[in-house]
């Protein structure tokens, strides 16, 4: 759709106009808007990624900023102004320790099976924990593992990324270090001294199914 103005009956709006259109769409929506949705709503021939880039730059250092959430974008208040927002704060349900750990394991190990979560935590995962996280729309089912029994796997959602202000699962804090230390594997690194798994699966998150739109 982008860069193909010749197949358009009408000329695409000028870049500045595209930018303010994207601005209006993102502003009006509380949920992140995917690039695909932007293209569907913008006039034909618009280049949403370019407009988003210019817009993100424009909002740098402002009270609102553009936040990338997977393949979507959202406008969010700057975190340093949280103290002004006490009025808007929504009381979220307090998660149990089991739920928080399970969430972290899904995020760092995704796609991960229930058995793997249990192996890492050393206890069985209660059904309620997984259900609560799914109900919060923070984890969802991924593709089935192609191993005997074809167990279901869990992956994190876009709402999870949005909630924690992550552009992608790669931005999880400490992900690189954990991977380098071999702590995202099922077995200890072969020799502990030089157990630097630099070639550890970088495509960990590509293996997860495409984000829903």
């Amino acid at each position, binding site marked *: 759709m982008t860069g193909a103005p010749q197949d358009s009956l009408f000329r695409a709006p000028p870049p500045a106009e595209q930018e303010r259109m994207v601005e209006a769409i993102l502003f009006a*929506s509380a949920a992140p808007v995917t690039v695909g949705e932007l293209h569907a709503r913008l006039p034909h021939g618009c280049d949403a990624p370019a407009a988003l880039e210019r817009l993100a730059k424009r909002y740098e250092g402002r009270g609102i900023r553009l936040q990338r959430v997977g393949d979507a974008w959202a406008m969010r208040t700057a975190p340093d102004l949280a103290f002004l927002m006490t009025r*808007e704060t929504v009381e979220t349900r307090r998660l149990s320790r089991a739920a928080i750990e399970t969430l972290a394991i899904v995020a760092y190990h995704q796609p991960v099976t229930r058995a793997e979560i249990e192996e890492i935590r*050393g206890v069985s995962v209660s059904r309620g924990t997984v259900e609560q996280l799914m109900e919060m729309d923070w984890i969802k089912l991924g593709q089935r593992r192609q191993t005997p029994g074809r167990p279901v796997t869990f992956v994190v959602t876009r709402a999870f990324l949005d909630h924690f202000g992550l552009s992608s699962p790669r931005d999880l804090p400490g992900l690189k270090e954990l991977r380098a230390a071999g702590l995202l594997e099922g077995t200890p690194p072969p020799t502990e001294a030089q157990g630097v798994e630099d070639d550890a699966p970088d495509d960990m998150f590509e293996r997860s199914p495409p984000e829903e739109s």
Partner: protein
Amino acid sequence: MAEDFIEGPARDDVAERLAAEALIVDVDGFEGPLDLLLTLARTQKVDLRRVSVLQLARQYLTFVERARALRIELAADYLVMAAWLAFLKSRLLLPPDPEEEGPSAEDLAAHLAFQLERLEAMRTAAARLMARDQLGRDVFARGEPQGLERSRKVIWTATLLDLMQGYARTRTRDDFRPFVMDRQGIWTMEEALERLRPIIGAVGDWTDLMAFLPDGWDGDPGRRRSATASTFAATLEMAKNGRLELRQDDMFGPIRLRAARA
């Protein structure tokens, strides 16, 4: 096992012993044996990668023994772990047996240390995750989202099957209409009288009753029966009124009629 009590790992460390006491009182607070092991490992105050698994096994077994002495119910998985650690401990203390198959005691110990380190890492990661700026707490979305105004255009659709079923429904409904006498196969006496009245005056000669049946009513037996009966009843009525004469020469013979002679 008794030896563990004598030279218990926390013998000369009062703080550690107090901590172990606290652990026991708190046994319900642990999320399984691995959680307990991780807590015990922390008391060694070393990098988890250098944790002494042998010492850890002793600590755990001491914990289980004391819990039993205090008659604290321990879940089965704590006891399974205790058995496994006792086995691991003995393997670690004995010189390696070259005949032995499977992973060495060192491998098993390394795996346990790895499991603890991995759990610890996930806990740290979880804490870091929850410490991030969170939506609705630190970062806020548009408070008054406009939403997408949807102008809805409805396209109505139906399939040929819908159409046929719809038609069938209207026709089937007819079949279930309240019962009324279905007169289509019935020739009533009124109709027979109606038919006979204008023509009877011209019947001079004796004529077979069957000749007076209406057209198209002599084929189907049911219809013929109805028409015959009505016509006969109509002739009786007219004979009573003196308008015609009837005769039947023999049993089951044809019934004949002619106009009454004045």
